[in-house]
């Protein structure tokens, strides 16, 4: 027989008690709150500020099997100068790529202040051994990534093996020391908002710098209610532990209007402390052009067609 501490019921039992002792989330209420905040009307000066802030919070992302060095170089050019016609458009926060292309991105954005984020730990499913995951992380960092977007083991989480999830995040945290660690909860697979809150706390306790909603490979990806619950978690975590953790909704945010809704959610849930690319990011690709189009519309009073904004 294995040692008593190996059984899941005992190992990590205090962690389980803690996570299950967190106040519940009433889904109907959370959705109603998110919907109410989505009805805020952001106009004129506020809209201008929100569009530029949203651009500066983007992790401009390409995570496809067909990604090539050329594609990543084009993405980096876009990241550095989103609107070639308007140099006042802010640059994005980071580019986000697979580990094998991190070196390309790192070379392209060197000296610009744009971060290189790389997904790791067998993204997106996370279904491999811890050794492989850690090797993946080290490979990404070695290639020049200064931000690591890891995925949690959702299977372990849903099986109630919280300590295993915790240990894995802690191991990645150790392996990625000195870089910025974003922990992807993949909320579309956790499904309930109670799970989202528990996973958020679990990730923060294990050392996450950021908690991130989704890989973008699962539907639904980021939603307002899920992000609301994660924001409440980082707010409560800071109140309890004195450490501020960032939040990154990712996947499915394509319209400027949606991005502004996320900023309103941040503003009225955790306040201005988080209204900064250091504490709030948006994982997206096509969103950037819609933000730029709206930005141009604000400046000129006219909508211009997609042909006037660059692809990538």
């Amino acid at each position, binding site marked *: 027989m294995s040692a008593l501490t190996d059984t899941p019921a005992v190992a990590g039992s205090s962690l389980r008690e803690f996570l299950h002792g967190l106040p*519940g989330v009433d889904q109907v209420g959370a959705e109603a709150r998110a919907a109410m905040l989505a009805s805020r009307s952001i106009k004129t000066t506020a809209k201008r500020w929100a569009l530029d802030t949203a651009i500066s919070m983007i992790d401009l992302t390409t995570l496809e099997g067909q990604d090539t060095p050329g594609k990543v170089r084009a993405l980096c050019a876009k990241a550095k100068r989103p609107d070639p016609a308007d140099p006042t458009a802010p640059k994005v926060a980071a580019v986000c790529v697979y580990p094998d292309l991190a070196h390309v991105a790192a070379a392209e954005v060197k000296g610009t202040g744009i971060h290189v984020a790389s997904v790791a730990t067998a993204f997106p499913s996370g279904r491999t051994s811890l050794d492989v995951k850690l090797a993946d992380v080290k490979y990404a960092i070695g290639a020049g990534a200064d931000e690591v977007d890891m995925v949690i083991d959702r299977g372990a989480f849903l099986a109630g093996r919280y300590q295993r999830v915790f240990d894995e995040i802690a191991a990645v945290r150790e392996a990625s020391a000195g870089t910025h660690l974003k922990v992807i909860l993949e909320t579309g697979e956790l499904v309930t908002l109670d799970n989202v809150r528990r996973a958020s706390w679990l990730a923060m306790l294990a050392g996450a710098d950021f908690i991130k909603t989704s890989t973008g490979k699962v539907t639904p990806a980021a939603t307002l209610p899920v992000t609301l619950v994660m924001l409440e978690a980082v707010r409560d975590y800071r109140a309890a532990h004195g450490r501020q953790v960032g939040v990154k909704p990712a996947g499915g945010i394509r319209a400027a209007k949606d991005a502004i809704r996320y900023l309103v959610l941040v503003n009225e849930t955790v306040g201005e402390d988080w209204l*900064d690319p250091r504490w709030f990011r948006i994982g997206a690709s096509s969103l950037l052009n819609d933000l730029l189009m709206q930005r141009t519309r604000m400046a000129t009073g006219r909508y211009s067609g997609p042909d006037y904004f660059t692809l990538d």
Partner: protein
Amino acid sequence: MGKLEYAPAPESRSIVSLRESYGLFIGGEFTPSVDGRAFKTISPATEEVLAEIAEAGPADVDRAVTAARQAYERTWAGLPAKERGKYLFRIARIVQERARELAVLESLDNGKPIRESRDVDIPLAAAHFFYHAGWADKLEYAGYGPAPRPLGVAGQVIPWNFPLLMLAWKIAPALACGNTVVLKPAETTPLTALVFAEICQQADLPAGVVNIVTGAGDTGRALVTHPGIDKVAFTGSTEVGKQIARDCATQPRKKVTLELGGKAANIVFEDAPVDQAVEGIVNGIFFNQGHVCCAGSRLLVQESVYSDVLAALRRRLGTLRLGDPLDKNTDVGAINSAAQLAKIRELSAVGEAEGAQRWSPPCELPVKGFWFPPTLFTGVTQAHRIAREEIFGPVLSVLTFRTPAEAVEKANNTPYGLSAGVWTDKGSLILWMSSRLRAGVVWANTFNKFDPSSPFGGYKESGYGREGGRHGLEAYLDV
């Protein structure tokens, strides 16, 4: 980075075309009052005069009741039920079509945020007409016998807190059941009722089926005591409700329903979903500036989570946006009248004098108009007046309890019994509580949610009779 400061986002007033003066709506037409008396209705947010309104005296009320009686006898009661339903469906659709106009007008005249008039008042008013339109030709299946008959002419007096919605609660079931009505809107908020009169014209509703008489308390009294009225329906203060009950006691043929005040307990247990409970507390007492008869004005928090809930509540109150009711981002609008503001101030002063601790978030009040900041009182006990009397404003009294039994005892220890809220993750506790709470409505993990299919009404001094749902039909049928 800077802050996200919301720029003003006012809903345009241009959709509303206000007339300088409005007459009474009697027999399908607008007419001046017999003695030519009139009063002004103002915007409580700016004190700007919006329009002059005819004041109905006893002779006008008599004209209106006569018109309603004629319409009842000559057209409405004899109309096939499905035809009545058609008119109600038509009215419901016009209310929807003119929703933005009605919302802007409601916010102008009442002071409530446009977000609420747009998202709650007007859609619910339309829903009440749709719902009751469906009942019109199905009354024989409502459980009141094979051919339930209408009562005749209904005299209806409504309050200023949800002007058009209360009108819908009154007129839709009355008409669906085959009655005709004379309705008196509140003197501070007559405008949407007068636009509703236009809607009745637009819908080709037979003349006299709906009559609107504007005025203050005297007009209302003339209406409910008029011998030609078969049914009295009143929503308003307990004080006036008692007077109506006394007046009608000498006219026993009148059926009476009263929906009066409340002092609802919103009960938060230690296992409640805290963030959503805080939203529910805020929605319970600051929705419509607390001008809600079923407002959750007493917060009962389990002592073990008191400090957590209070901290979260204070933080949340700090984000409430008070100001221009027509701004789409406003959460808390203006107090409806100078008189109501004086009453809120007086009771709040009593709360302080009796030793409760008063707190409001930093909040700049506009100079003109009637305003009161969202306010919390802690250290309140059952003996405090602010825990017993209806304030009808954005003032929350916070009390604590230790066990479910104590929560029930404290919640029920009030002369009122209109509504209550229970917040817990435990389903069995919700059922245990709701079977013991003496309140007409018990909300679980939500608050201030309304639906036309759900009956609403009170126990004790909150009145008698039910509005909405199958139960609400009974008040307008001879059963």
